[in-house]
């Protein structure tokens, strides 16, 4: 027990941002646990034999590993994955545990935590680092590994399946869902507050822990739809002509449903910094969304824009459009060109990496910006108020990645 606590202190020394979570774990000694394991209620089970034969510094690594399962909500995600893909059973448990370990192990070791000899890494299967548990589960069968790693067991905290030694939700010293969320939230806030201390993987986790990223297709779709469907465009009620129901209700004035298909103009940043593949997928998406909201193909036009803007081309030709450009960007000329076209567009969709000057005032139509994220250049970490150039607030911004 002493040794285990010293290891926890070691872990807190080298990973101070995880201290709250490490201390929130309740330690339970149990001989039936193979090594160390956690359950979904933040109890940490440790086998005395395993603790006795493992050096303190390696135990510190195990602490961080186990708490990572809990912080990253592997039990919840594992259960959801299992339900979605209808995969259950002991083999599946092991697969999820391995995939969860892949997600954790690629970036927690080093910098004060020695990497143990038998650690499970994605490279065992020739997979890249830095993926999520779900991605590892989809990419690899993991069955080749399963026979060798049958001993591996991080408990229900890693895969969501209850073990015989666990105390269960009713047992003592467990954390309720609300308390677990609170601990995870505090750790995430701590990392976000001082991002300099934590490695990339943890910072990404902290950003997304309570705000899971949504697929950009849905977000872009929602943005374009709500821009195109707002009053004035799209399908809406109108008093310009009486409703057909009016005939049955004399004296009552009823509006009728009228449809004005939205005109969408896509301004594409063709500067050297945006790749053709990125542009192609985003452009097709915009076209599909526009069709879905009732826009006709001839109402969607495309302007390619670098330092100077091209001419608006209707979409029927844009599928073979030559995206001219390269070099620097000035989207202002693209916006100006879009607004000059007659009839004027209802919605402007700008696809860009954001490395451009923006128009100083809001254009007289709705604007959606599809932003290809670029790594922040020289962000000044000493100045927490530093904000990189962002698209203006009048535009709805969807990050495309």
């Amino acid at each position: 027990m002493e040794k285990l606590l010293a290891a926890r202190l070691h872990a807190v020394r080298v990973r101070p941002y995880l201290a709250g979570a490490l201390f929130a774990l309740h330690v339970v000694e149990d001989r039936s646990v193979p090594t160390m394991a956690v359950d979904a209620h933040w109890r940490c089970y440790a086998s005395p034999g395993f603790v006795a034969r493992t050096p303190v510094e390696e135990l510190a690594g195990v602490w961080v590993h186990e708490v990572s399962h809990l912080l990253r909500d592997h039990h919840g995600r594992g259960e959801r994955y299992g339900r979605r893909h209808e995969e259950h059973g002991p083999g599946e448990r092991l697969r999820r545990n391995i995939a969860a370990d892949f997600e954790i192990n690629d970036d927690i070791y080093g910098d004060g935590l020695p990497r143990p000899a038998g650690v499970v890494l994605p490279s065992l299967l020739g997979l890249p680092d830095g993926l999520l548990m779900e991605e590892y589960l989809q990419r690899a069968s993991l069955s080749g590994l399963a026979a060798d790693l049958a001993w591996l067991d991080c408990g229900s905290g890693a895969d969501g399946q209850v073990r015989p030694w666990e105390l269960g939700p009713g047992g003592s010293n467990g954390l309720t869902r609300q308390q677990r969320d609170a601990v995870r939230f505090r750790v995430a806030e701590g990392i976000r507050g001082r991002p300099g201390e934590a490695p990339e993987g943890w910072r990404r986790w902290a950003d997304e822990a309570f705000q899971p990223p949504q697929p950009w297709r849905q977000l872009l779709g929602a943005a374009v739809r709500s821009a195109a469907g707002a009053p004035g465009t799209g399908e809406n009620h109108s008093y310009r002509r009486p409703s057909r129901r009016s005939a049955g209700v004399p004296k009552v004035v009823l509006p009728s449903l009228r449809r004005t298909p939205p005109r969408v103009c896509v301004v594409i940043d063709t500067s050297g910094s945006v790749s053709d593949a990125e542009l192609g997928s985003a452009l097709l998406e915009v076209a599909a969304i526009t069709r879905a909201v009732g826009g006709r193909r001839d109402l969607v036009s495309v302007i390619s824009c670098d330092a100077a803007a091209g001419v608006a081309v209707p979409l029927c030709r844009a599928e073979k459009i030559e995206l001219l450009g390269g070099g620097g960007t000035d989207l202002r000329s693209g916006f100006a060109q879009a607004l000059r076209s007659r009839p004027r567009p209802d919605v402007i969709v700008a696809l860009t990496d954001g490395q451009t000057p923006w128009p100083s005032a809001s254009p007289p139509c709705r604007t959606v910006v599809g932003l290809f994220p670029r790594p922040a250049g020289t962000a000044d970490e000493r100045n927490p108020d530093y904000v990189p150039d962002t698209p203006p607030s009048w535009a709805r911004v969807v990050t495309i990645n």
Partner: protein
Amino acid sequence: MTISTVLPARKTHLAPADDLLALLRTTTTEPRPDEQLEALTLAVAADLPVLLWGEPGIGKTAALTQLAASLDLPLTTVIASVHEPSDFSGLPVVGEDPAVQGVPMAPPQWAVELVRAGRGLLFLDELSTATPAVQAALLRVVLERRVGALQLPPGIRIVAAANPRASAADGWELSPPLANRFVHLYWVHDQEVVVRGLGGVWPRAELPRLVPELLAEAVAFSRRAVCGFLTARPTLIHRLPSSETRRGGAWPSPRSWDAALTLLAFGTAASASREVLALLVRGAVGDGPGLELLAYLDRMDLPDPESLLADPAAAELPERGDLRQAALEAVVAAVGARPERGRWEAGWAVLVRASETGTADLLVAPATALAALRRDDWEVPETMERLAGVIGLAREADRSVRRVTAVGSALRGAGAGR
């Protein structure tokens, strides 16, 4: 006519079908705690408009039916997407002389009946598939409780339902002002409940009851919590949702903090669990601010450092490690704020007490901080010896950290030599 002869014949043919249906519909219920239903009941009792987010067919309507039955309120369901704006803003009826009498906006039948009943649960379903004009008209119903020229009486509670953006065909979303008015509850199904329910046993939630003796205390508690929290975190008083992923959800503003305060008071008066409080508070002001407020509530539960210092031997420290460490750090901070020899020694006594009742590794940081507060003329108290285990533990951790860094630098040296 042949109707009279047809009817009995149809009845005999359908009789077995009716019997079968009757059998299928005979189900029993069992008591089962249901946090989301408890949260919904409290929010409805607090007269705040609730918005249920959930996939189609997940049982939102069934939950509403149960709620209306148990609150003994008549349920009026209005499916927003099949209505026209005038059904909510009133139908303009041209009279004899519009220039003199004006054009009255006649309310629809359901509103008239609702007002006549004086009480009821108005359920606005399918909010997310109505046209923008209908949604605009609905805003008035929710915000001002007006339908045409008719004012809804205070006995009427409003619940709306919407499909989340990912599954909504037309991707409508709430504008920030409207989102700010609702308490957002995310409706999910529980596999066990559905399977048991289809097997014939549906859950019957025990609805929270407000305890009359707790009312005054609940108001005082929630005012203290929200005011104390917002004094510490003024930037959270008003924060418009900025990112695209947060649109349409709850966000903090004075109005939604007022809602959170109300909900907290209702939850406390009903002795609701922290889980239910969390659903409500996060539904009112959003996940981030809601979680921070709950963390603040946890801190409010911590023992007062001054009373710990006053009687260290009887100190009751929290069981949970992170909270226990927070309590000890508060004690050290209190000593540091007014460093006197007696208080410093009492601080050590609290640490000794903590070492007797919990794990030793939690004490290292507070003990180090307390030791640093020592003045030259203060002697180390004898009770310190009982913390020898803590010092041993700290040394062992130090040694192991040094071992790792030594290996690391040795490896780097070897790599450089190659």
